[in-house]
């Protein structure tokens, strides 16, 4: 249990997907201008990461290893994720139009979000068992959501700040991200 808590904390703060592993930087810079869209993306990533981690992990353990086709993992994983995202989109559209309205536009973007494929691959590289895989994927996605939330609020505030012309937009966002990364890295001593 203690080991799982350490894993969760590391995935959430010290090994944060965005600020220390640099996965999912595109949505981090692209859809963080408004809090509502940042949260929408966060929920979509949580949903898809969890689902795709379970599917790809089982696929690797029970199909690819049994057939000795481990080298095909990149191709198989990306296809599984792309198919999964399409399916999730169809299912959500049918079952809950309200949820579809909230997440719909973010779902197609997720296929090329490196966080999703990255977590699927890291679960294999780190040799996680089923429980560790669940905890790791959940907390990585929650960490993504948490950083998106903080960052989007900072960007909303920055809209009204006097920023030099050259820094407007992405450059100042990166500088702010650097400060956030510094804060998150300091938590490393706890684990």
């Amino acid at each position, binding site marked *: 249990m203690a080991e799982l808590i350490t894993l969760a904390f590391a995935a959430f703060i010290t090994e944060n997907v965005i*600020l*220390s*592993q*640099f*996965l*999912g*930087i*595109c949505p981090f*810079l692209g859809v963080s201008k408004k809090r509502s869209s940042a949260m929408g993306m966060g929920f979509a990533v949580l949903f898809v990461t969890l689902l795709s981690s379970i599917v790809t992990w089982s696929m690797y353990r029970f199909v690819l290893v049994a057939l000795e086709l481990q*080298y*095909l*993992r*990149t*191709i198989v994983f*990306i*296809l599984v994720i*792309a198919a999964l995202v399409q399916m999730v989109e169809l299912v959500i559209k049918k079952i809950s139009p309200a949820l579809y309205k909230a997440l719909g536009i973010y779902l197609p973007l997720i*296929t*090329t*979000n*490196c966080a999703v*494929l*990255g977590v699927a*691959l*890291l679960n294999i*590289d780190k040799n996680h068992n089923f429980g560790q895989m669940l905890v790791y994927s959940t907390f990585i996605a929650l960490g993504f959501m948490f950083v998106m939330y903080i960052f989007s609020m900072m960007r909303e505030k920055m809209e009204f700040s006097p920023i*030099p*012309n*050259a*820094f*407007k*937009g*992405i*450059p*100042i*966002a*990166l*500088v702010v*991200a*650097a*400060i956030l*990364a*510094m804060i998150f*890295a300091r938590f490393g001593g706890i684990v």
Partner: protein
Amino acid sequence: MNQKENFLKGFIKENPLFVSVLGTCPSLAITTSVENAIGMGIAVLFVLVLSNWIISMLMVNEKMREWIKPVRIPVFIVVIATLVTVVEMVMHAYLVSLYESLGVFIPLIVVNCIILGRAEAFASTNKPVSAIVDGAGMALGYTFALLLISLVRELLGSGTLTIWGDLSLNLRFLFDFLRITPIDMFTKPVGAFLTFGFILAVITALSNAKQAKLKKAVK
């Protein structure tokens, strides 16, 4: 547009990293040494040139194009993922240390937006030869951008420049001369965000100045 312009546009005018801000994840993660940047650049060059070529070959025929169009994204992804797997296997076999330091970012070339972006925006509507030239230009432009970031980070962060394997320059005497130590922060995530942010700001400032000059000339 002739082939030369087609090749050169990737470096400055349409630089994938600095102008379109695509493929940011590896540019922040693996730029801790110049060697990593070169390795990543070569991997992207290989994948992008071949994927552009294969995709434009697939789409050059009218009949094929009609047939592939509705499922083109999955088709592109399969082509790219296959090429990435080839790169991954070759690197694992011959360049083990580079393979280990690039880590998960080699398979993640699949989701690098530059490659799918060029397939969709250029290769699928152009002839194979121009697609290859475009791919080479874009990949080298990306490599150039990665090199710039990694030069700053490695020099300031550890005081060395690792070019390839054992071939490295030790520039610590410069730091000794100035009586300072290398700034460790630049090898950490903080340094990645800061370096990239400041380089982008310099580029924005330069292009703003250029535009202001053009406006003055028009007036």
